[in-house]
């Protein structure tokens, strides 16, 4: 098998005025992922290459970067699928660069936290001292399931054109999670959640370019969630009225 030409964008802001591309020649093997190629270069060619990774199975979301121009997970991209003998690795757009391929996702996590990404219930006592589960039908569950697959890798937000300029926009990840919790039949915080998104730099700054869904490795389809949420923001009503429903079968049952 021919060797792989691996170009990595190197940049240590504490020392370099601007980024530069450095090429490494890495022995290629069948089924090799881009992460494996990067780690080979780091372990055996230049220990100072900055790359972030952990699970190597697309569960943790650490290794988001731009590979051959598109945001992808390095562990989830095989060299073969890119075609050709060269791989170009750069940090994700729209996040500050800490070093080389490592970006600062601080604001990303902050924006996630700002959409109240958790179940909001009026039965605080039961919620924190549960006696039994809240009942959910399998089909009700399946409506939110794909949005729960989000691994917070940040690819969608780096792909979003609005995020490219608007620093206050929550971004596709946070908005899709706002939908995930608002659409959960157990949730009762939808009204406040959607009100908070109805602002100058809120949900309406999404123009459905769809790049978030295009790059999402886990099938979340954030663009779908965001558009579905827009309808509810427009009407001011969450997808379901949990207060009503909770009185009936969702009320926790007593132990038999």
């Amino acid at each position, binding site marked *: 098998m021919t060797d792989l030409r691996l170009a990595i964008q190197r940049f240590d802001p504490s020392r370099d005025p601007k980024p530069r591309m450095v090429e490494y020649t890495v022995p290629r093997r069948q089924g090799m992922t881009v992460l494996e190629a990067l780690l080979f270069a780091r372990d055996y060619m230049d220990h100072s290459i900055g790359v972030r990774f952990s699970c190597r199975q697309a569960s943790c979301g650490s290794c988001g970067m731009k590979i051959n121009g598109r945001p992808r997970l390095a562990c989830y991209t095989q060299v073969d699928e890119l075609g050709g003998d060269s791989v170009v690795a750069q940090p994700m757009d729209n996040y500050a660069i800490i070093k080389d391929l490592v970006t600062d996702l601080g604001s990303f996590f902050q924006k996630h936290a700002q959409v109240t990404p958790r179940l909001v219930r009026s039965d605080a006592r039961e919620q924190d001292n549960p006696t039994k589960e809240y009942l959910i039908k399998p089909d009700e569950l399946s409506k939110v399931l794909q949005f729960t697959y989000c691994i917070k890798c940040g690819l969608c937000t780096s792909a979003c054109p609005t995020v490219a300029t*608007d620093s206050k926009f929550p971004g596709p990840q946070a908005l899709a999670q706002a939908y995930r919790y608002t659409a959960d039949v157990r949730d009762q915080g939808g009204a406040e959640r959607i009100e908070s998104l*109805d602002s*100058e730099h809120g949900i*309406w700054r999404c123009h459905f370019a769809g790049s978030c869904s295009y790059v999402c490795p886990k099938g979340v389809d954030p663009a779908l969630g965001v558009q579905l949420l827009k309808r509810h*923001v*427009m009407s001011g009503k969450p997808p379901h009225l949990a207060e009503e429903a909770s009185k009936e079968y969702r009320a926790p049952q007593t132990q038999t």
Partner: protein
Amino acid sequence: MRESRLMLIQYTTAVLAVALVAVHLLMQGIITPYSTAISFSTILSIYRSWFYAIFLEALLVVVLVHGFNGLRIILHEWKQTAPWSRWTDIGTLVAIVATVAYGTRTVILAIFGGVSG
């Protein structure tokens, strides 16, 4: 104003604009042959018909509100400082009022201004 109200305006003006512009284009190029459509007498008769005058005025308002609000959105997405946000809002309002007024002036003067062919 809640952003969703502004978006509702944006969507509504968009749909209306599509309908009105379509009629406008058809009138200028297809229902009447182009060379006739832009002749002074044809245009004068259009302005002097109440129906078409109202139509043109509606087209004016709808397209300008949609266009300048669209520009406002683009500018808001471009920069996010508080003064920028305030001045683009004010600028948008001023631009809409000014351009609508200017266009309305044309309509009114065409009808009442003693223009004759």
